[in-house]
C-alpha cells in the first residue's frame, strides 16, 4: 500500500494581523495565516475570514428590490440598519458615507461624525468607514469621523495613491487603521502599501482593497491578483502581506445578472435565486483566493456565506 505523504508547502511568510474595534467593545482580528485559504494541513489559520455588512448613511437609491425588501425599514437610518446587521450576525459594519457626495446631498463632516456616533451607539461591532470616493469630501468627512471615534480603532477609507496623506495621518493620530484601494494590480497594491508605511503608518494598521470584479465581470482578474498577493506574502514579502478586503456585495449587485427582473433571457432563470447566487459565488471564490474581510449586501448571503466559512474552518481530520 503506497503511503501518501501530505504535500505540505513550507511557507516563510505570514499574513499581517490587523485588529479592529475599540476598548470595551467587540473586537475583530483578521490575518495571521501561514498558509493559503482554508488549507489546514499546510499551516495555521488563527482567525477566520469575517463578514462586513454594507450600510449606507442614506436610503440606497438604486439597490435591487429584493435587497431593499430584505432590510425593510432599517434602511431608513444607518443606526437601525447597523443594529439589524449585528442581529443578523455580521462581524463588522462597512459604513459608506454616501450622502457626503457633492451630488447626493453634500453633507458635512459634522454630520458624518454624528452618523458614526449614532451607529456606534446602536451596535458595538467594529466599523469600517469610507467617504463618497471624492477626494476632498473623503478627507473632510473622514477627518471628522476619526476625531469623533478616537480610540475606537476604525478602518478608514478610501486611501488611494492620489489621496493618501490626509487619511493616513488622521488614522495615525486617532489610533485607527485604513483601507487602501488600488486598481486590480498586485504591484499597485504593493506600491500603495509602501507609500502608506513610508509616511509612518504601522503595518498592522493597513487593510488592502485590491479591487473586486464580480462573477462574469472580471472576477478572474481579482482572483489572480488576490492569489498573487497572498503567495507573495507567504513567500516573505511583508509589503504584500496585509489582509484583503473584498466588495462582493457592491460589485455583484450592480450587474444586470443580479438586478434585472425583466427583459432578460429565460435561460437566466429566477432573479431571486440568481441574484443571491451571484453575490455568494463571487464571495466564495474570492474568499478562497485570499479575502479576509468580505463586504456583503443581502442578509441571506451573509448567512449562507458564514455557514460555508464555518465548514471551511472545521478541520475534518486528515485526508491522507
Amino acid at each position, binding site marked *: *500500500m*503506497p503511503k*501518501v505523504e501530505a504535500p505540505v508547502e513550507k511557507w516563510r511568510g505570514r499574513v499581517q494581523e490587523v485588529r479592529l474595534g475599540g476598548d470595551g467593545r467587540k473586537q475583530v482580528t483578521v490575518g495571521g495565516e501561514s498558509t493559503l485559504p482554508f488549507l489546514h494541513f499546510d499551516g495555521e489559520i488563527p482567525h477566520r475570514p469575517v463578514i462586513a455588512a454594507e450600510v449606507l448613511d442614506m436610503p440606497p437609491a438604486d439597490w435591487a428590490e429584493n435587497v431593499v425588501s430584505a432590510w425593510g425599514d432599517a434602511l431608513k437610518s444607518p443606526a437601525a440598519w447597523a443594529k439589524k446587521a449585528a442581529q443578523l450576525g455580521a462581524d463588522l459594519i462597512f459604513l459608506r458615507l454616501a450622502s457626503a457626495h457633492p451630488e447626493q446631498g453634500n453633507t458635512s463632516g459634522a454630520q458624518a461624525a454624528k452618523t458614526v456616533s449614532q451607529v456606534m451607539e446602536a451596535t458595538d461591532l467594529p466599523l469600517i468607514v469610507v467617504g463618497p470616493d471624492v477626494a476632498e469630501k473623503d478627507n473632510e468627512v473622514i477627518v471628522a469621523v476619526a476625531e469623533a471615534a478616537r480610540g475606537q480603532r476604525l478602518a478608514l477609507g478610501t486611501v488611494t495613491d492620489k489621496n493618501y496623506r490626509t487619511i493616513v495621518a488622521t488614522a495615525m493620530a486617532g489610533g485607527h487603521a485604513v483601507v487602501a484601494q488600488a486598481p486590480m494590480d498586485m504591484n499597485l497594491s504593493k506600491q500603495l502599501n509602501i507609500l502608506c508605511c513610508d509616511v509612518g503608518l504601522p503595518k498592522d494598521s493597513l487593510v488592502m482593497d485590491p479591487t473586486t470584479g464580480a462573477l462574469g465581470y472580471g472576477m*478572474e482578474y481579482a482572483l489572480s491578483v488576490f492569489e498573487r498577493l497572498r503567495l507573495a506574502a507567504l513567500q516573505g514579502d511583508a509589503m504584500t502581506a496585509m489582509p484583503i478586503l473584498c466588495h462582493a456585495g457592491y460589485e455583484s449587485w450592480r*450587474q444586470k*445578472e443580479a438586478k434585472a427582473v425583466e427583459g432578460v433571457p429565460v435561460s437566466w432563470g*429566477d432573479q431571486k435565486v440568481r441574484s443571491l447566487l451571484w453575490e455568494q459565488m463571487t464571495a466564495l471564490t474570492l474568499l478562497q483566493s485570499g479575502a479576509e474581510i468580505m463586504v456583503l449586501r443581502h442578509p441571506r448571503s451573509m448567512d449562507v456565506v458564514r455557514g460555508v466559512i464555518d465548514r471551511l474552518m*472545521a478541520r*475534518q481530520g486528515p485526508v491522507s
Partner: protein
Amino acid sequence: MALTAIEIYKYLPKTNCKDCGFPTCLAFAMKLAQKGAELSACKHVSEEAKSALEAASRPPIRLVTIGKDGRKVEVGNEVAMFRHEKTFYHQPGLLLRVKDSAAPDKVAQEMAAVASYKVERVGMQLSWNGLAIQNDGGDKAAFLAAVKLAQAHPELALVLMSDDPDTMAAALGDPAVAGRLPLIYAATEANWQKMAALAKQHKCPLAVRAGGLDALATLTEQVAAAGIEDIVVDPGARDFGDSLNALTQIRRLALKKSFRPLGYPVITFPGEKASSQEEEVLLATQHIARYAGVIVLDHFSPAMAYPLLTERLNIYTDPQKPLQMQAGVYPFGKPDPASPLLVTTNFSLTYFSVSSEIESSGFPTWLMVVDTEGQSVLTSWASGKFDAEKISKAAKNFKVEEKIGHRSLVIPGAVAVLRGELEGEFPEWKIMVGPREAVGIGPFLKQNWAR
C-alpha cells in the same frame, strides 16, 4: 513532470553513434528534453528504456474523455496550481444526477431540461454536459429503465453509477449505451476486479472510489495494473473543508511530486453534504475553482446553471489571452438617435467596467466597441491598435452615422491625446473627452445629457 536532459541521457546507449543526427547522446538528450526531437530517431535504445522514458514523459494528470462527441467531457492534463502560472485548460464537466428510484416521468423531464438548456454569454453558447444515472435502490430493472430514458439524449455525456458489477454489466450490455463511452462509477475495494474487466471490455473510463488518499492510491495502482488507463478518482471527501484539502493535495501530489497513482481527474458530488441548494451550488463553485474534473450535482435549474457556467468560463479563461468582446455598436437601455455615443476597446474587462457603469447610470447610451485584439485602452493606444484611423474605420463598418442623429463622440479620458487626430478624421464631428476612469461615466453622462 518533464525529465531533464541528464535524466533522459541515463536511458540512452551512450555510444555517440550519431545515427540520430546529433553529434552525441547528450546532445540528443538535450533536444529530447526541449521536445525538439523524437525518441524514435534513436534506433539503438532498448525496449525497456523506451517504455521507461515514455512513462516518464506522460502528462502528470491523465487526460480522460467521457463520451464521444456532442458534449463529451475531456478533463485532466492540467499543469498549474494557480491559473496565473499558465492557465487551466480543460473545463470540468457539469452533470446532473438522476436516481432510478424516482418516478420515470420526472426523470425523463429532468433529462430533457438538461439536454435543452442553452445560454449565451460573451458570444458563446454554453450548456450542461450531461447526466449521471444512479442505481439507487439496487434494482437492476429500474436502472436499465432509467438508462434507457437517457438514450433519448445521445449527445449528453453519461456517468453510470452502481456498485454492483452485474447491474453495470447489464447496462453496458446494450451496445448503444456502451458505445457512448460512459464513465463507469465506481470501482471500490470490494468490486474492482469485475469493474476493471467491464471497463476493459467496453473501453470505457472507470471511476475509482476509496476513503482517503492512501486507500485511493492503492486502488488506482491495482486498477492500472489490470490494464485500465482512463481513470477518474473519488477520494470520498464531500464537505467544503475536506474536499478543498483533498483536491488540493491530489493536484499538488500529481504536479509537484509526480505521484502517478493520483495523477487523474477528480469527480465530486457537491449535493451530498449540502444543507440547501445554495450550498450545493457554492460547493460546485469551489470545485470549479479548485481542481475538480467532473462535477455531479443533484439539482438543476436555469438560475443555478447560468451562474455556474459563468464561473467555469471565468476560471478557465486563459490569463494570457483575455476574453474579447465582439466589436460593434451596443445599445444600453433602448437608446434613440439622440442618445450619447461612447467608444472603447474590446478587452473584456474594459468593456465590463464601461458597460456596467453605463448600465447603472440608467442613461440610454450607444457604446461602440473597437477591435483592439483584446487590449485595454492605454495598451492598445500605445501599440497603435486604438487610434483615430481604427476608430473611424470601425464607425464606418458599423454604419454609426445611420444609427445616430447627432455628431458627438465621447472618447476615454486616458486617450485625450487622440482628440486632435480624430477631429482630422471626422471633420464634421465634435470629439468629447470622457472621464479617465469608468466610474466617472455616470456623472459625465448626467452632466452632459441631463434633460
